[in-house]
């Protein structure tokens, strides 16, 4: 007889379970089991994966949860009495599953969704009791397992001998008849300990005494005994205590026996318990039979119980439709034609209409009309809110989406194929993603909840798994290692999976020092580092916690909360326990509403343009826009100066000039070092070039060397080659190189006549070993039948095979290219407003301080912090006097100053302007430390100047410091109270005692870096300049004038660190540094990595030696051969005769805000 495990935690029981659902299901099936339960702690986090795994293994799924129950006797609802397992009964049209979902949502309802909450995830016994019976049929639909971790089981070890019986009787009194079973578990710990056979015997006897069925489980945490040490480490991570501490308490699992034991092992375990209880063979048989009987009761039918693979969309009435949804969709598309294609006629009209019919037929066939209407409704709602939004992804391939205003890309114009998005052969709901302004995303979510009703909407969650750094930290904590030591090791772990830690020790130069210490263990007897490596590998990828997915919103009908448990998210809105992998199996409609900072930055820039240039005429003059047909400027600028970015024509020459210059810092998608290099080589001339550029800059094409031949053909260095003239129309736009998914589809279609829908299925099969062979057989035969020669067939198949699995969907590229173009357009025409938007919303990959450098390069003045002029956001300001008079500058924002609270900020801005420090104190109530920091940043300099007096900034800071120290609430120190009403200017400022030397530039820059993470007064490299000059270091602005292959020294602050995937699999490290004149991109190949070692990821200021590589007419980068840490002057390569530099204080000394300064948290 086979045994069914009814109490099993998967890895999705965060910080508890060890094994993946697939491992568990396979192990159960190969032992001959016919069913397996998944009872994760606190939720159904692993349930859908469990269903999938069980279906694949050919066994029946059983679903349940391991849930804490509150102590009825506790005063507050915070005391947990114990945990029980609750199983859903199956084959009752989902009544059991529904009750389970609702019960779990109950358990989370009182929690806050924020970390560190005091309310536990738990239910009351009354809630549990009420969910066990179906409200309609009044039949039991849940079964509650009272086991070793319940209040009954926990009382076994106590002194009060009768306590377990009292507690057990309470359960029987409180829960409906037939919903309770006793769970017998022995993990063979020492007699009398928790999970011992002795305790199992007592539980068995309690069940016997009260005529309650007893069942046997093994309270499984790992599929094989090998998982036990991992479970120990997870216990440590969960409780935040080291293993030695836990062992003392004792809080660790008493033994390592909690694995998915085989049927025969479980039978033997049953025998041992029964014989220890003094029972006989009949009792053993009863225990095993009852276990199987409960298993049978709980077998789940995925389709009828859980709605497996059945798409559910909101009811038609909710989206305001009274007629057949498909009729509605047809009517809306027709209405869209005149708007999207005004005046279309003739062949173009025929072509468009036949495409529309084609799409509508497929949509109708799949029954997805309501889905499209739902997405259109959401899209309409967002636009009504006045929020910038753009559809992305393959949804842009659909003419229907274009006509109903979901997408802004005309698929006919860009040759996009509907089948790439949806076809007869794909029955799953397609993804439509909508990008919105990041700053508005949460408002959009709230509106969706309001519009569709809280019962139909929930946020999607995501699982966060262990990566190398987190894993090494938690493994180190488990071993009781020193925090600092583990932190140092964690710092060096960069972009590899924890599972390959030991392998990485051999290969990665930055880990060489650590690897040496691991090998040293035999000498100094320290075995901990070796264990650390093993335990880190064990934690790899295990889920740590769930969080709100950055964009997924689930939309359903009124039954949504019967199909997914929900819990509060940090945002306050409910979040499903299911992640993106669970959507398709559960037929859930997921909408990706993605917050894109660039959209916010652009919206901000457009508003700044209006504020500074409040009329069309001003905007046209400031942006040097063409005067248009009527001489009044282009149509996309409104009379009030508002620019409709979506209406800007995509052929602006100034914009393309900017792009070709590679000065694209801040532009969407094309600002990374790699992209700037590619753009320099490619020199885009038109919008389609941008689509191609974005599509080429992907791991696949970069890895497989598609870029070089493309560029050679494009620039005419090599003739374009087509495998066959028939393919020329398909491949011409990319000069014969296959770049887009769309081209793969057409190639299949042209050469085999298979149709585009099948072609997309073929494309999906590429790269899948099993399926690819079938595709190859079909392709070869069909292409030969159409008369293509074996050479052509071979050649084309080679291309399909190589590029098919990772080419790029052109619809994605087109959707991305729009904001790319728009951001470049803004940078070209309104750079001040654009940079202000970038600073405000920080959309890019670089630290903010690099954009300061960019402003400096563009000659845009950066205006210092000023208590009366700076606001809560960055602002463009016209400069009134001085050498820059008449120019536009950017005024620094009060937001983002270290230590200045949001309320202080609000009050300061509300109270502006201030005529004195006393006025500021009285009305803004800013704290003394904040006022001192503002003084350090020079925010009072102009006020100070107006007040007269001879003191400087240092004197003022000193004065404020004194006040701060002497003032603990004593009266009398606030000497200047009362001067408020006198229009005398600031007596306090005027009377600040002079005497200190004025702060040096270095000191000012230091304060800026420390408090704002930007260097405004001067570039932070400037103080190094004399030393760099003596070393012969060259600056970024001079680099372009050098010949290819010149050996140079460069120096700067790290601004970007990337390890993109490369051809041949060997790691290449890109490090970009900024030296104040621009950005230098350097590439470290294998040998240079070996030489640079720990400097690769551990240093902020770098001196790099390398040779120049010309990448294009306007692009140059560096191939590095060696690097040094500029902070350690003694290591620098001075000539022997050169004297060492005297120790100079550098602005970065002692400042630890590495991430915000260098964009790197190493």
């Amino acid at each position, binding site marked *: 007889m086979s045994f069914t495990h009814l109490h099993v935690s998967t890895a999705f029981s965060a910080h508890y379970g060890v094994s993946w659902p697939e491992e568990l299901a396979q192990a159960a099936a190969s032992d001959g089991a016919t069913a397996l339960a998944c009872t994760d702690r606190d939720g159904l986090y692993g349930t859908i994966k469990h269903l999938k795994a069980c279906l694949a293994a050919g066994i029946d799924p059983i679903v349940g949860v391991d849930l804490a129950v509150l102590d009825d006797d506790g005063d507050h609802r915070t005391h947990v009495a114990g945990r029980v397992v609750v199983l859903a009964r199956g084959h009752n049209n989902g009544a059991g599953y529904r009750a389970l979902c609702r019960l779990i949502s109950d358990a989370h309802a009182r929690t806050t969704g924020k970390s560190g909450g005091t309310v536990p995830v738990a239910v009351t016994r009354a809630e549990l009791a009420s969910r066990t019976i179906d409200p309609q049929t009044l039949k039991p639909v849940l079964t509650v397992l009272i086991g070793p971790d319940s209040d009954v089981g926990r009382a076994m070890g106590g002194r009060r001998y009768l306590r377990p019986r009292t507690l057990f009787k309470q359960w029987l009194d409180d829960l409906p008849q037939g919903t309770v079973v006793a769970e017998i578990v022995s993990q063979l710990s*020492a007699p009398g300990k928790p999970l011992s056979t002795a305790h199992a015997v007592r539980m068995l006897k309690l069940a016997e005494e009260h005529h309650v069925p007893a069942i046997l489980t093994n309270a499984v945490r790992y599929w094989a*005994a090998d998982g036990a*040490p991992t479970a*120990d480490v997870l216990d440590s991570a969960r409780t935040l205590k080291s293993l030695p501490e836990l062992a003392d308490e004792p809080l660790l699992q*008493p*033994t390592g026996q909690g694995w998915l034991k085989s049927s025969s092992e479980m039978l033997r375990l049953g025998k041992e318990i029964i014989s220890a209880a003094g029972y006989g063979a009949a009792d053993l048989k009863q225990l095993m039979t009852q276990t199987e009987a409960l298993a049978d009761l709980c077998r789940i039918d995925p389709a009828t119980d859980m709605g497996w693979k059945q798409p559910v969309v909101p009811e038609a009435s909710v989206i305001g439709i009274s007629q057949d949804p498909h009729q509605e969709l047809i009517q809306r598309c027709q209405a869209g034609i005149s708007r999207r294609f005004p005046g279309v006629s003739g062949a173009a009209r025929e072509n468009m209409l036949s495409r529309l019919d084609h799409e509508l037929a497929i949509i109708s066939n799949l029954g997805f009309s309501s889905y499209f209407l739902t997405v259109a409704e959401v899209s309409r709602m967002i636009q009504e809110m006045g929020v910038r939004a753009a559809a992305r992804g393959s949804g842009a391939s659909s003419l229907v989406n274009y006509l109903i205003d979901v997408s802004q890309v005309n698929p006919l114009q860009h040759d996009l194929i509907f089948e790439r998005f949806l076809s007869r052969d794909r029955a799953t709901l397609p993804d439509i993603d909508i990008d919105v302004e990041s700053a508005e995303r949460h408002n959009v979510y709230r509106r969706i909840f309001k519009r569709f009703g809280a019962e139909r909407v929930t946020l999607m969650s995501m699982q966060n798994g262990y990566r190398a750094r987190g894993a090494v930290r938690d493994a180190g904590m488990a071993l009781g290692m020193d925090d600092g030591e583990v932190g140092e090791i964690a710092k060096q772990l960069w972009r590899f999976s924890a599972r390959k830690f030991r392998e990485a020790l051999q290969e990665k130069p930055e880990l060489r020092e650590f690897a040496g210490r691991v090998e040293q263990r035999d000498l100094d007897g320290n075995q901990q580092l070796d264990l650390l490596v093993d335990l880190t*590998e064990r934690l790899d990828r295990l889920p740590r916690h769930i969080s709100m997915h950055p964009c997924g919103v689930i939309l359903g009908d009124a039954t949504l909360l019967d199909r997914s448990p929900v819990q509060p998210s940090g945002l306050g809105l409910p979040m499903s326990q299911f992640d993106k992998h669970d959507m398709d199996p559960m037929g859930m409609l997921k909408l990706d509403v993605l917050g894109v900072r660039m959209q916010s930055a652009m919206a901000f820039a457009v508003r700044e343009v209006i504020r500074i240039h409040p009329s069309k005429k001003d905007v046209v003059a400031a942006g040097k826009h063409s005067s248009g047909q009527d001489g009044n400027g282009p149509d996309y600028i409104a009379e009030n100066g508002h620019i409709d970015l979506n209406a800007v024509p995509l052929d602006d020459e100034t914009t393309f000039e900017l792009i070709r210059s590679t000065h694209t810092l801040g532009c969407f998608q094309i600002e990374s070092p790699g992209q700037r290099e590619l753009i320099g080589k490619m020199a885009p001339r038109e919008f389609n070039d941008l689509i191609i550029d974005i599509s080429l800059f992907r791991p696949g094409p970069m890895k497989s060397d598609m870029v070089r031949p493309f560029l050679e053909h494009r620039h005419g260095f090599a003739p374009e080659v087509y495998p066959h003239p028939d393919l020329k129309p398909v491949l011409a736009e990319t000069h014969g190189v296959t770049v887009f998914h769309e081209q793969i589809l057409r190639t299949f279609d042209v050469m085999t006549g298979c149709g585009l829908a099948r072609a997309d299925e073929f494309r999906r099969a590429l790269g899948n070993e099993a399926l690819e062979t079938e595709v190859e057989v079909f392709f070869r035969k069909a292409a030969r039948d159409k008369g293509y020669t074996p050479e052509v067939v071979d050649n084309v198949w080679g291309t399909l095979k190589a590029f098919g699995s990772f080419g790029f969907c052109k619809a994605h590229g087109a959707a991305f290219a729009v904001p790319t173009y728009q951001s470049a357009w803004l940078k070209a025409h309104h750079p001040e407003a654009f940079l202000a938007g970038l600073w405000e919303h920080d959309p890019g990959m670089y630290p903010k301080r690099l954009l300061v450098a960019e402003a400096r390069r563009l000659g845009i003045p950066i205006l210092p912090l000023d208590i009366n002029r700076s606001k809560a956001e960055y602002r463009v300001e016209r400069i009134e006097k001085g050498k820059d008079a008449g120019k536009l500058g950017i005024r620094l924002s009060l937001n983002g100053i270290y230590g200045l609270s949001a309320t202080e900020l609000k009050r300061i801005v509300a109270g502006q302007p201030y005529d004195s420090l006393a006025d500021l104190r009285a009305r803004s109530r800013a704290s003394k430390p904040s006022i001192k920091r503002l003084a350090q940043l020079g925010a009072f300099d102009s006020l100070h100047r107006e007040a007269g007096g001879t003191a400087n900034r240092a004197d003022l800071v000193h004065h404020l410091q004194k006040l701060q120290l002497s003032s603990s609430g004593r009266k009398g120190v606030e000497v200047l109270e009362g001067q408020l009403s006198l229009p005398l200017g600031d007596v306090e400022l005027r009377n600040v005692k002079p005497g200190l030397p004025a702060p040096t530039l270095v000191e000012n820059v230091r304060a800026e870096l420390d408090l704002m993470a930007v260097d405004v007064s001067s570039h932070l490299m400037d103080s190094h300049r004399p030393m760099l000059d003596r070393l012969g270091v060259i600056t970024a602005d001079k680099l372009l004038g050098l010949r290819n292959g010149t050996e140079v020294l460069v120096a700067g602050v790290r601004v970007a660190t990337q390890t993109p995937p490369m051809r041949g699999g060997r790691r290449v490290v890109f490090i970009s540094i900024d030296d104040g004149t621009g950005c230098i991109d350097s590439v470290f190949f294998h040998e240079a990595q070996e030489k640079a070692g720990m400097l690769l990821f551990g240093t902020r200021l770098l001196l790099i030696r390398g040779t120049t590589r010309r990448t294009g007419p306007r692009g140059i980068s560096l191939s590095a051969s060696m690097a040094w840490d500029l902070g350690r002057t003694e290591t620098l390569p001075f000539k022997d005769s050169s004297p060492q530099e005297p120790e100079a204080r550098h602005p970065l000394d002692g400042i630890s805000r590495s991430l915000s300064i260098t964009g790197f948290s190493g």
Partner: protein
Amino acid sequence: MGMFSQSVDVVCSAEGQPQSLLWAGDSYTVCAEPVRWYERRQWWAEESRAPLGSGPGVVDHEIWRVQVLPSHTPRGVPEPDEPLTLDLTRHIRSGRWRLLRIHDALRPRTA
């Protein structure tokens, strides 16, 4: 009770239960149903490696508590009244047995 870690040879039944043992040159017979359980090890202090795939026996080890009587009464020594209670452990990977503790021992033969 004394704490020991001495090597012993154990003969087991088909089910894996100890039946008799050879300890310091003398042979003993198990005279009552043995009790078995598992005990934790301080593996993080005792092991230098615990890679994935280590298998069982890292976290715990098996303990058998047996009651034994000498198989052959040595000459000149009177028959003991009480059986000896011993805790044995079997190393999972090597299969070797060690004597961990002697209970109720009036006079342990070795220290």
